[in-house]
């Protein structure tokens, strides 16, 4: 009987401890509003390394910097893009800059981007993180990190897409990589985003 009571007591204590731990953990995440692995990274606007190359938007309002391992690729006439492809033509790294064309606004950029992906090229898209008031060289931006699956080919990509507003213009910079390679690609892509110059 004594043994049974002692075991029951230990069980109760264990249950209380476990419940308290769970409650504290959930409360910590809820109060802080953040979840490990989903934090939006700090961007420190700075020019790229000396050996990086540059593509200026045809309208002259922004400059996309990219590392020498990427090559310019064709795209919309008003935009510039650079990418690193596999020998088979699959995208490993992708950078794009495009003047603002629609009703994109800083306040609603993350939702706009997700809507756009799902209305246009993606079978599914999910937001990972976002941030407002991101400092850029020459302006301020609203950014979103998201994942999506292309309708064609079912390719999984992760991207950081920012609407950047400068003194006289606004444009979008996209930096993407296959989801499976995001961890490795992330530092270089963030560096390219941080090097984006808008006028």
């Amino acid at each position, binding site marked *: 009987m004594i043994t049974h009571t002692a075991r029951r007591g230990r*069980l109760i204590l264990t249950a209380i401890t*476990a*419940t308290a731990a*769970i409650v504290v953990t959930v409360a910590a*995440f809820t109060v802080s*509003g*953040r*979840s*490990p*692995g*989903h*934090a*939006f*990274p700090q*961007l420190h606007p700075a020019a790229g390394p000396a050996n990086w190359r540059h593509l200026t938007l045809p309208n002259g309002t922004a400059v996309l910097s990219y590392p020498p391992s990427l090559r310019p*690729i064709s*795209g*919309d006439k008003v935009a510039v*893009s650079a990418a690193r492809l596999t020998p088979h033509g699959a*995208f490993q790294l*992708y950078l*794009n800059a*495009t003047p603002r*064309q*629609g*009703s*994109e606004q800083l306040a*609603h950029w993350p*939702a*706009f981007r*997700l*809507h*756009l992906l*799902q*209305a*246009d*090229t993606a079978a*599914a898209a*999910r*937001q*990972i*993180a*976002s*941030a*407002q*008031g*991101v400092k850029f060289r020459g302006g301020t931006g609203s950014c979103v990190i998201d*994942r999506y*699956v*292309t*309708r*064609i080919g079912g390719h999984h*990509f992760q991207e950081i*897409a920012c609407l950047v507003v400068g003194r006289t213009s606004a444009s*979008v*910079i996209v930096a*993407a990589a*296959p*989801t499976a390679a995001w*961890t490795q690609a992330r530092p270089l892509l963030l560096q390219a985003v941080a090097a984006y110059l808008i006028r």
Partner: protein
Amino acid sequence: MFTHARWAAGLALIAALAAGCGTGAGLYGSGAKPTATAHSAAPKPAVTHHHHARSAHATVTTRPASPAPSVTAPAANPIPQGNGGDQDADNNGGPSDGDGNI
């Protein structure tokens, strides 16, 4: 024995409820000013990730749409896929560019 089973079941239920609450926690961190939404903008199927086992990213749940009230939706007539539109990469299964879909 029966008492133990009840305790175990109760503990499992509490853990499950707490875990469910945890997935609704914010997804943002430091870095300028995070915005307030953290879910898919439309009730599409959740993205499935086959490539790595980072459970924090892979366990995605689909939630009903609750877009920001004043967001202007992109054009309703998306650029045709399969080398449609301007024949650029994102019309052929490549990454999406930054155009406004106009």
